[in-house]
């Protein structure tokens, strides 16, 4: 294989990975949402099943024929209007799934993901202990496999900044709470989920327009933060409960709230209105969906307002003073309790907003969606230096960009590993974080 050919294959593969990710993700989400809609064959006859979703860049392909065979059993299935298919299969562990490429639209083919597979449209399916297996194909357009590595890189960086700004909204709150009260709040993840769930209830269950639902969700989140402080954290502070104890209480609260969301919303994924907005090309091959652009603008505006508040206003200055030294702040006449209350309200409001944006970015709302990014938020905060608001923002953007770009080099299901690994490495050399101070280490 000569160099040019090799490069082409590499590009093709990268594109393939990207498409595969989209196909797999959309399959996972859509299957979780409404599994009964798939075009189903023999599902009632057998307990085991193979399921899949044929999509090209999130556009469903209808009427694609697939043949599933193995152990003397053979069945044919066609995808439905949403690109889904499902077949029941008898006991036995291995089946061959063949996608009939002639039934794909013109100019579209199954992409060879390995690089040396002559028949990428034929795959072996193993039935796992769960009795069901997901089988997806890597589908792409021949003539569009020319996205250069540089273009992809730029696209990932733009996405990463967007993700990072969203993380930043959550991270600033955690950092402020830590700075003023010393609490590493694990329940912050559930404050993120709370915002998204509230937006879902207002917009979908009550049917109100999104532009009312989201501000209302942020307001409800702020109220949630205030009531948590009033009902739980303030009494515990008054009682003089230790920092480690408070942290374990927040873990308990996190578990209780997370499963409460599951209790009321179930284990599935639900979508906010407008989550399927079209992509708008920006430059080169970089395109962002409308919601992503709006979300980026909202993040930036909120963060700028917050920075102004923290640096210029009286209560912002008081917050920084309490972060610096609570006793000294109290001695100079600052009402520490009031500052902490304001911090909880702000932190919860920003976490709620982050939850709504995360719901659009993922996309989808799930009971444990906050917990999925909690560690990234902690990584961001620790990178930047616990307790410093601007450090949290810098850390978030680094983590966001790292997570998004790392999947160009490592398998995409390991993209969080890169960010968490960097956290551990940074702590080796600079335990106090990028903008933190030495006193924070033991």
């Amino acid at each position, binding site marked *: 294989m000569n160099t040019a050919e090799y490069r082409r294959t590499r590009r093709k593969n990268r594109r393939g990975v990207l498409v595969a990710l989209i196909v797999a993700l959309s399959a996972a989400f859509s299957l979780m949402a409404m599994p009964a809609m798939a075009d189903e064959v023999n599902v009632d006859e057998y307990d085991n099943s193979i399921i899949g979703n044929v999509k090209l860049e999130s556009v469903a392909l209808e009427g694609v024929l697939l043949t599933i065979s193995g152990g003397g059993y053979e069945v044919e299935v066609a995808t439905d209007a949403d690109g889904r298919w499902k077949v029941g299969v008898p006991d036995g562990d291995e089946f061959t799934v063949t996608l009939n490429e002639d039934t794909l639209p013109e100019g579209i083919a199954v992409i060879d993901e390995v690089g040396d597979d002559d028949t990428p449209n034929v795959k072996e399916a193993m039935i796992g*202990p769960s009795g069901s297996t997901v089988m997806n194909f890597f589908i792409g357009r021949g003539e569009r496999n020319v996205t250069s590595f540089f273009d992809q890189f730029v696209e990932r960086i733009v996405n990463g900044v967007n993700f990072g700004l969203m993380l930043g909204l959550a991270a600033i709150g955690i950092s402020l709470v830590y700075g003023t009260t010393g609490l590493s709040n694990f329940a912050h993840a559930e404050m993120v989920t709370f915002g998204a769930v509230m937006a879902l209830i207002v917009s979908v269950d009550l049917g109100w327009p999104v532009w009312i639902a989201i501000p209302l969700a942020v307001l409800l989140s702020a109220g949630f933060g205030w009531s948590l402080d009033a009902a739980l954290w303030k009494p515990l502070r008054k009682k003089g409960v230790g920092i480690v104890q408070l942290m374990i209480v927040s873990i308990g609260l996190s578990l209780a709230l997370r*499963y409460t969301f599951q209790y009321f919303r179930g284990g599935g994924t639900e979508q906010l209105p407008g989550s399927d907005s079209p992509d708008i090309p920006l430059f080169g091959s970089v395109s962002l969906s409308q919601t992503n652009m709006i979300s980026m603008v909202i993040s930036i505006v909120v963060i700028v307002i917050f920075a102004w508040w923290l640096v210029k206003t009286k209560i912002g200055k008081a917050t920084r003073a309490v972060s610096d030294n609570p006793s000294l702040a109290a001695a100079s006449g600052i009402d520490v309790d009031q500052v902490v209350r304001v911090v909880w309200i702000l932190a919860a409001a920003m976490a709620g907003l982050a939850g709504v944006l995360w719901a659009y970015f993922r996309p989808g709302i799930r009971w444990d969606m906050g*917990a999925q990014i909690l560690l990234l938020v902690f990584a961001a905060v620790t990178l930047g230096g616990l307790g410093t608001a601007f450090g949290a923002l810098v850390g978030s953007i680094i983590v966001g960009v790292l997570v998004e770009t790392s999947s160009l080099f490592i398998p995409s299901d390991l993209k*969080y*590993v890169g960010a*968490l690994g960097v956290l*551990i490495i940074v702590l080796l050399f600079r335990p106090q974080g990028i903008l933190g101070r030495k006193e924070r280490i*033991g």
Partner: protein
Amino acid sequence: MDILQILSNTGSSLIAPATIGYALAALGLAMHFGFTGLLNMGMAAFMAIGAYGYAISILTFGFPWWGGMLVGVGGSLVFALILGIPTLRLRGDYLAIVTIAAAEVVRLLFLTTTFDKYTGSADGLSGYHESFRAFNPIPDGTYGFGPWEYNANGWWVRIFGIAILALAAFILWAVMRSPWGRVIKGIREDEDAVRALGKNVFSYKLQSLMLGGVFGAMGGIIYALPASVNPGVYVTSLTFFVYTALLLGGAATIFGPIIGSVIFWGVQTLLSNLLPAMVNVGLLPFMTTTQSQTVRFILVGVALMLLVIYRPQGILGNKKELTFVK
């Protein structure tokens, strides 16, 4: 509603392999958190490394069962070194965040499809029982009475697990009354004072992390021994649940973690059987059976909060032994 069946399931859970696995992991956390004061939130990773080390070495490399266990334990020692060297200098809450991140890294590495050949990715691993069962000295048949009626393999796993648990409890008791244990407790009370006495605090902490990590790895192996290794088990919630069991029994005690685990699983099994049954006969008209399965996890969270606030020393503990309570 079959009350007898519910009670029987609950009774059976008291000596289930999962209970023994939790008890071992909780003993490890007692070493880390209760005695040394290290806020290790990555216990799930030690359990995962134990379980995967055992299963992979048997399935991929054809080791005998004891070889698999040695690999699992060895893996946890290596992980303790890798985790401890950069992080043990960090203060309590920082350490918690970093260990929880490390545990998540370990879980994602076992979950990724990249190493599917060895780890089975999302499906996990199973079918590694042959070697362990071949070593079973108990003749075939069913033994026991009431809720505790198991076949030869069932008893073999339980007896082996309880023996390991007893050994671990004995080791923990023995080292904590030795001079080494006094230094460890001293580190928990006042690190600087111990340093002033010329002790290498970092080295002691690392040894504590390794010993507790071995208990955790054995816990992971016992947990996976009768059935399969499933990556969905080793999530951060597992660490939190083990902490709940530990704090329930008493963090700085030998028997506390064991009693805490038994109560934790007893109550969990009771609720997971009782609540759906109550829903089915119409006693809880406002929830579905699926919802009733979620309730017990909400209760774990609430119980953890109440425990830490009102009785941080747990059932057996002594409040003087708790430096994390200010």
